């Protein structure tokens, strides 16, 4: 049976997110060389790998901030309509509305927060519910306040991003993603831009989301944390997934020599 049949909505096990044979190159330089990955509901997948292994690019391809050259993608069983790259022409989005709808269900948390500096954090978080989910102003503010409270920023909601610490900004970034009620949360090195003493508060929030059973993909250099929160882990090397499996197994009994060396040097 073809994967497209397996993942059709209505089947018992519709993956939250699935990619097959994902390829991406920048110019002539291949960054992803055929990545296949499935995130089932309630899974937390830690994506590991050294710099340049393609893990951030993979995450950015998943919500199409980068257009893949080749490969198939499904979100909640829905196949994304993409054109493959041919003869120097890059890949393209064939159905912009579909992509906008799908993006709204994939929450992204960025390394550099990317909060909108001209808006209070309450407005930052309420923007999506207001303009994408078309909630009333009051409803959207309610949702925003609820999620800001969840990440511990209720008392800072009327502050502007530049008035907050990095850790607080990142927590606001997480609240902004949560307010869209996404099916999958994508974390792109969420603590890499933070001072060590601020990473703890962000990791605590991510851990609580994992405990809620949210589906998450987590690209991180915090290996101890990845091991602790993720149910599965994938180790990327040179644009491919070198090894993948239950988190515990990957960390305790790495099969490949490369992963073994990676764990020894980083962990």
């Amino acid at each position, binding site marked *: 049976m073809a994967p497209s049949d397996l993942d059709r909505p209505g089947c018992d096990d519709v993956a939250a997110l699935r990619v097959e044979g994902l390829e991406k190159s920048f110019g002539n330089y291949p960054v992803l060389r055929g990545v296949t990955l499935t995130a089932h509901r309630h899974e937390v997948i830690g994506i590991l790998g050294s710099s340049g292994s393609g893990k951030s690019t993979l995450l950015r391809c998943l*919500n199409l*901030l980068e257009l893949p050259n080749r490969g198939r993608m499904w979100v909640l069983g829905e196949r994304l309509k993409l054109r493959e790259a041919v003869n120097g022409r890059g890949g393209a989005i064939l159905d912009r509305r579909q992509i*906008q*709808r*799908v*993006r*709204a*269900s*994939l*929450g*992204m948390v*960025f390394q*550099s927060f*990317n*909060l*909108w*500096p*001209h808006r209070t954090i309450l407005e930052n978080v309420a*923007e*999506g519910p207001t*303009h*994408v989910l078309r909630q009333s102003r009051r409803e959207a503010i309610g949702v925003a306040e609820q999620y800001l409270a969840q990440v511990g920023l209720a008392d800072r909601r009327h502050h*502007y991003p*530049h*008035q907050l610490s990095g850790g607080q900004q990142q927590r606001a*970034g997480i609240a*902004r*993603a949560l307010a*869209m009620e996404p099916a999958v949360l994508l974390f792109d090195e969420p603590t890499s831009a933070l001072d060590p003493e601020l990473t703890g508060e962000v990791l605590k929030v991510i851990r609580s989301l994992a405990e809620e059973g949210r589906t998450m993909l987590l690209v991180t250099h915090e290996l101890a944390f990845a091991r602790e929160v993720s149910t599965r882990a994938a180790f990327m090397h040179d644009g491919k997934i070198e090894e993948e499996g239950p988190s515990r197994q990957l960390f305790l009994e790495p099969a490949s020599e490369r992963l073994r060396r990676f764990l020894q040097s980083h962990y």
Partner: protein
Amino acid sequence: MNGFAIQFLHGLCMTVLVAAISGVLGTAVGLAGAASKLSAYRIPMWLAEVYTTVIRGVPELLVILLIYFGGTAAITFAIGRYVEISALSAGVIALTVIFGAYSTEIFRGAILSIPRGQWEAASSIGLKSWQIWLLVILPQMVRVALPAFCNLWISLLKDTALISVVGLTDIMRVAFVGAGSMRAPLTFYLAASALYLLLTSVSLLAFRRLEQHIAVPGQLR
């Protein structure tokens, strides 16, 4: 001199009118120009490039004369009999074209100053392109562009004086005629200078207030 007070008042109104219309239309042209220059499509990009290169490369006075005489020639050709383009429309068109070319570059620079992540964050929550422009890019762009835009507005106010060469009765024209007929050039030119200075000072004050009004609270610039 007393008889000229009312003339100067008319001239002042004309100057403000021409500047205001060209300022508004030129801003629209500038936004379109900046969007074209930054677009992924080649043809609008090239057209915008040619437009700003030509207009910024030719003296303002020549642009006004070319549009006045060129416009008259074009309308005459189209209708088949001699029709002169009005000084007001020629002036407004010329100043719009000039203002548009310079503001294209101001807006382009301001848009480029906004980090890529701002766009990415907006599209990652599913905002449409026009929503991203309206909610995320324009408000941030305005804050960056405002000081340079104020500069451009001031020079537009003063450039209106050039339109008097095609016969529009603005402040400059009134001063020129008055200086000749009353044989008191210094008095009239000083009066005209005072009026321009008044307009530019009020503008500067207004822009200062606007800048304070839209500043993000507590942010150091």
